[in-house]
């Protein structure tokens, strides 16, 4: 068992820089999710752990060992690809056995390991079929099976669920999480789906344009996003952003058409910055209808209802104040009329304040 460490890692294709100065410390037995928009370099980072991409600069360590020059097969890792990459001409059994046989594992041991892995994943009855004869979900299991059968020190997943339909994805998400808890194997999991990131990872590493934005537990990242990008990326529907200025010696946040008082808990951030331009972030669940119980200090605002999206357990209300649009989560039984003016309550202690110029969280 081993952790994975990135030390000032860079990846460049000639002049083009894909990843720069990546520092990331993945603990032993940890489930780390790399998440970010398409093209941000998360697959590249994962493939550098696997040894499928050369490392242009810095070090990658697995356990205590620097693996920059170590061949993939000697890194004691296993990888699950988005396309599953099952060997189409081999049966499922042969797929699972392939790595073991190449490593000259005795046949009795091979049989035992394959049986064990197949049982864990519930694919024992499929062993004599070819990959073509399996459903997408079954192939997915086989791909995971091929990874766990060798009992490697690190699992690498590259968007393993993105080819599955929504329902199956939720199911497999839970299964992979359970599997990791059971096997206690260090796991690096790449996804662009922030729900997967939130639900699966012990910690999340958010990336953008080849740079690490924030690393933390799902809750930390959700509650304390370190910049505008992370705040916008994590959470559905995304956080509301309003441009504003700090006024009245740091006691008021003034937007174009409305103002919010600064709660006592946040005064230490605003008082020293009187007159500064900020971006205020408010999560939709922190804007509610007045009937709902709230936490901490609150303020009331009036907004015009543009769109209402009923989701069953709640209604998303898109309401505007001047040019600013806010999304609020409202009780389904109190769904407002379109174009009416409604009262909305903002939970002030959950406001997120970002510097308008640097886009960083005020701290």
């Amino acid at each position: 068992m081993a952790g994975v460490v990135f030390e000032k890692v860079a990846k460049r294709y000639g002049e083009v820089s894909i990843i720069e100065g990546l520092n990331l410390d993945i603990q032993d037995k940890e489930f780390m999710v790399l998440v970010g928009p398409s093209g941000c370099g998360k697959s590249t980072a994962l493939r550098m752990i696997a040894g499928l991409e050369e490392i242009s600069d810095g070090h990658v360590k697995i356990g205590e060992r620097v693996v920059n020059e170590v061949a993939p097969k000697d890194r004691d890792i296993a990888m699950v690809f988005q396309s599953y990459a099952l060997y189409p001409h081999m049966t499922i059994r042969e797929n699972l056995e392939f790595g073991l046989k190449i490593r000259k594992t005795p046949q009795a041991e091979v049989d035992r390991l394959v049986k064990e892995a197949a049982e864990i994943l519930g694919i024992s009855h499929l062993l004599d079929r070819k990959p073509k004869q399996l459903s997408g979900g079954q192939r997915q299991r086989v791909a995971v099976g091929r990874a766990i059968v060798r009992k490697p020190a690190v699992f690498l997943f590259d968007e393993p669920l993105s080819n599955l339909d929504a329902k199956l994805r939720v199911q497999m998400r839970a299964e992979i999480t359970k599997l990791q808890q059971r096997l206690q194997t260090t796991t690096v999991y790449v996804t662009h789906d922030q729900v997967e990131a939130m639900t699966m990872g012990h910690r999340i590493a958010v990336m953008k344009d080849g740079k690490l934005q924030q690393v933390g537990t799902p809750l930390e990242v959700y509650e304390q996003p370190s910049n505008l990008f992370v705040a916008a990326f994590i959470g559905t529907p995304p956080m509301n952003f309003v441009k504003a200025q700090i006024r009245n010696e740091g006691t008021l946040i003034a937007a174009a058409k409305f103002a919010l008082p600064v709660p006592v808990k946040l005064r230490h951030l605003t008082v020293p910055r009187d007159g500064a331009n900020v971006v205020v972030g408010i999560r939709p669940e922190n804007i509610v209808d007045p009937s709902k119980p709230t936490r901490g200090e609150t303020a009331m605002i009036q907004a015009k209802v543009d769109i209402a999206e009923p989701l069953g357990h709640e209604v998303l209300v898109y309401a505007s104040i001047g040019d600013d649009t806010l999304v609020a989560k409202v009780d389904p039984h109190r769904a407002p009329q379109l174009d009416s003016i409604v009262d909305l309550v903002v939970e002030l202690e959950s406001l997120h304040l970002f510097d308008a110029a640097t886009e960083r969280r005020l701290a």
Partner: protein
Amino acid sequence: MKDKAGHDELPHLPLHIFLIIFVLIATYPILWVVTIALSGKQSLALATLPDRIAVTEERLVQNIPGLNDEEATAIVEALENAKWIDERGILTLKPERDKVAPLLPAELSKYAEPLHKDLMVCLAEPSTLDRLRAITPWPETFSLENFRAVFRDQPFGRWIINSAVIATATTILGVFLACTAGYAFSRFSFPGRRAGLMSFLVSQMFPGTLMLVPLYIIVVQWLQLGSSRIGLTLIYATTSIPFCVWMLKGYFDTIPKELEEAALIDGASPGVIFWRIVLPLAKPAVAVTALFSFMTGWNEFIQAATFMDKEELYTAPVGLRFFVGGFSQQWGYFSAGAIIVSIPIVILFLFLQKYLVSGLTAGSVKG
């Protein structure tokens, strides 16, 4: 009438008739060849039409009562002078009853009536049935003599073996080199990759005959491999490899890179990946290239005729030419030989059939 599925059967009838006619037309030339081969003769004709009977003195003496030899000679002479018959005695026109007597010397005109009768017999046009027989690809008599003779009287067995050896060697050499080269072109980037691929493509632009002179210089003068099986194998491999490389490269391109990466992580060496993952998946393309290489070596004529100047080193196509070239017109041997030569190709096609379709359409549809 309705068939089981409830469709009207009748609309299919014209289609079936059309298809049957089409098949007959398409297979007619082949049936012709088979018929000649099985006829035991050397003639190109399917059946011999009955010839007109020659008008001879003996015949006249026999058939006209009271006619003696001199009189017969005189009659034949008269007919010849009138250009009714040619020098072989074959009638050139249809004799009219009234014109027979004036033709003959006065003392012989008493024979005009029986003579006309006999001339009409000699005229005997072939019947419609005979004409039909002449275009039906069915031998008058079945005989395997042609097949026996090409092996017994002619060194055809030897030529077949030459062809087999050369074509097989070409296939093995060509497919091996094309697989490795195609894989390199598909997977690795190296200096000269584009130039190499382009030059392979460009080389396909020129007809093989254009390469005859340079190949002759290289193979015969430099390598001293003229009139040898190795030399011809080299030449064939050279001509088939460019196509094979492109074919295989195109197919390797469709094999996902992740498969190889998965195998790499599983611990496979590049050799194992190539032999156990890539090649088995490229089977259809390998089948196509193998067939193509084999056919190149098996069917080719011009280069074989140029490079093999000893009769015992002839390949089958060159040998076939031997049967009908120059002074010999042994179409029977030729047909029998041609059938023997085509059998291995037909068998190969049937054998590789399931790969061929997928191999040739590879990449056109994303699986």
